[in-house]
């Protein structure tokens, strides 16, 4: 039992943070948001995109036997937090945390997918279309598309087998598109019996990494609010000297600090790869993942509202960079059914006695039953 990150994990997160502090500032985001079309957007982000690729995190979760780094999801969670803190427009987390591991898991059972895997590890972009949505993020830079009609199959396409139309998100930096398949053949379609569990695990990973991004976003928003409160004067003193403001920002920090361990523990309970068993009974794991999704959303929701309030009228203007973080947090918060779906599933599990309770059950059952 050891619930703290190691030096390597911290250093990796710090290296990403340093890079994004340089290349993903508020001004960078604004430039990208004001890019008038997809091409100029892509150009505006090209340097950052290349530098991120160079960090080599994309294949972090792909097993070593398949040419990846063989790391565990928990190794990526601080990176996801940093991506959130910077409102990173690139789908680093989506690729490294979900799409590439899903492709690797497919490759392990499907030779045609296996043939494509090296190119994907080498930098080919992968977009992921969930079975229950027709919207896709990051198609601009994708070469491959993973998708399916339902969670019992998994199909791999080349990106040029689709047409797409841009859809506008509340977050100007989320490049949403809606895909229309041309009438062509996929690279492969698998209906292996393991596919449903791959989709389930992919959803858990997506939920946890989105939660980690939301924690980073919340932290950034509160930091912006604190900084503004120290700088802005009203009635002859910094507004941050008002106890009401201090307590509001303290409340946000409390919410963030008690969401973090939930997100980290959910990450720490995920399996080493999408097809590896998890450490926890899946009903417990689902509860912890839902809990992480909820806690992170609540922290980001409170942080966004509070930061906007503290900024006064300025908080409501497009001029303020805060908007990019707030809008990212609103967009991410709605995904996969949003807080409501996560809460409902957790609530029903609790009320219908599908998970065991008690002080000794924090990490799943700690001793065999009847001990």
């Amino acid at each position, binding site marked *: 039992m050891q619930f703290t990150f190691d030096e390597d994990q911290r250093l990796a997160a710090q290296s990403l943070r340093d890079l994004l502090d340089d290349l993903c500032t508020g001004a960078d985001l604004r430039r990208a948001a004001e890019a008038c079309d997809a091409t100029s957007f892509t150009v505006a982000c090209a340097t950052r995109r290349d530098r991120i690729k160079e960090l080599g995190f994309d294949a972090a979760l792909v097993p070593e036997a398949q040419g990846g780094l063989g790391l565990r999801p928990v190794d990526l969670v601080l990176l996801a937090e940093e991506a959130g803190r910077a409102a990173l427009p690139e789908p680093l987390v989506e690729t490294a945390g979900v799409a590439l591991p899903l492709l690797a898991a497919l490759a392990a059972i499907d030779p045609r997918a296996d043939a494509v895997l090296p190119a994907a590890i080498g930098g080919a972009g992968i977009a992921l279309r969930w079975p229950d949505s027709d919207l896709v993020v990051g198609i601009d830079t994708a070469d491959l598309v993973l998708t399916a009609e339902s969670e019992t199959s998994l199909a791999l396409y080349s990106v040029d087998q689709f047409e797409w139309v841009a859809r506008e998100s509340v977050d100007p930096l989320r490049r949403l598109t809606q895909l229309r398949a041309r009438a062509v053949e996929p690279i492969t379609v698998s209906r292996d019996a393991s596919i449903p569990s791959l989709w389930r695990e992919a959803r858990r990973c997506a939920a946890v990494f989105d939660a980690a991004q939301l924690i980073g976003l919340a932290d950034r928003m509160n930091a912006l609010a604190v900084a503004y409160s120290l700088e802005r004067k009203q009635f002859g003193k910094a507004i941050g000297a008002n106890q009401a403001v201090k307590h509001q920002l303290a409340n946000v920090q409390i919410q963030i600090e008690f969401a973090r361990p939930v997100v980290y523990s959910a990450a720490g309970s995920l399996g080493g790869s999408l097809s590896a068993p998890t450490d926890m009974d899946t009903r417990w794991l689902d509860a912890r993942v839902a809990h992480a999704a909820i806690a992170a959303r609540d922290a980001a929701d409170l942080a966004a509202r509070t930061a906007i309030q503290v900024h006064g009228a300025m*908080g409501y203007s497009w001029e303020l960079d805060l908007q990019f973080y707030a809008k990212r947090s609103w967009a991410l918060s709605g995904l996969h*059914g949003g807080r409501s779906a996560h809460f409902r599933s957790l609530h029903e599990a609790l009320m219908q006695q599908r998970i065991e309770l008690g002080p000794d059950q924090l990490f799943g059952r700690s001793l065999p039953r009847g001990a």
Partner: protein
Amino acid sequence: MSIELQYTAKQRALRQEVREWLQTNVPKKSLASYDTAEGFEAHRQWERTLHSGRWSMVTWPEKFGGRGLDLIEWLIFEEEYYRADAPGRVNQNGVFLFGPTLMEYGTDEQKARFLPRLASGEDIWAQVWSEPQAGSDLAALRSTAIRDGDHYVVNGHKIWSTRAVFADWGFALFRTDPASERHRGLSYIVFPLDTPGVRVRGIPQLDGEAGFAEIFFEDARIPVTNLIGAEGQGWSIAMATAGFERGLMLRSPARFQRTAQRLVELARRAQSDADPGLLASVTQCWMDAEAYALSTYMTASRLMSGGSIGAEASLNKVFWSELDLRMHRAAIGLLGARAELRDRLGESAQEDLREAMRWMDGFLFSLAGPIYAGANEIQRNIIAERVLGMPKV
């Protein structure tokens, strides 16, 4: 007379009349946002339509184009207005803030000059108060209007002026005594927004549209006949206006009841999937919208019996602004991933997408509620100090 919660025959007749007129006259297609040039003109046209039916400012005296309705009648009018999903009032600042101020403080000449054009929608008015260093702390204003013959020469920088991008006139506070401090030496002055030396720059808001503006004054000359009240009386006139704003009329309860109704309808459709806590929060929102309406009826009855409005203004402001935010947050929660989509697919957009976009628009706007018209933290200070008698620090 004691508490009597039935409408009179006269009140019912008024409701019937309003309902019928709106059924005939409210545009079938919703108007474009008044933060766009096209939408602004469409809303101005709607003000004209309202005026043609003598519904544009129902509480104003008949001589100024109103109907002289009392507060309960006004509430009935508003209920029907929101029930009919009639367009937003682009001249709201004129109707509810400047108009009543002018009736109280203006000269007969000023009333004759401004009120009929305001009532008919010929002039749309913007409030020009805040400055970059003076938001909730309005007494920190620095823009000056220096008397020069029969004009004031105005210099300074105003900001957060709602509707100012397309409006015709502004009502403003300027410092006429440059040596004065805080709330002394301020004057209430109105001016056409196209006065030479006045430059209006739209400020895009969270949704990207220019719902407010900043205004730069460089030796702009405004005739002294545009002074409302006396020189130096600006602060007390403005405070009276702020009372209207936070008080009864700027946010009629019907607005929130209508939102609550739509929210309950959304929840009913979503209830098989939604979490029970979220559904319960919808019920709580509905209750609070009802409570706000009931409270307003009580205040209106009290005012009609000779009472005066006091700290209710602050209580109301905190309550409706936080309720509005909660309602929109609940809706966003019910919408899930649908809430994210913002593209205007025009006529081709499905009704549920258009509804989702309305909620997101409303959510973004509701975030500003606790900020404008005196931040809620200031209102809570006022409640503690004036209602509870706690110390001012």
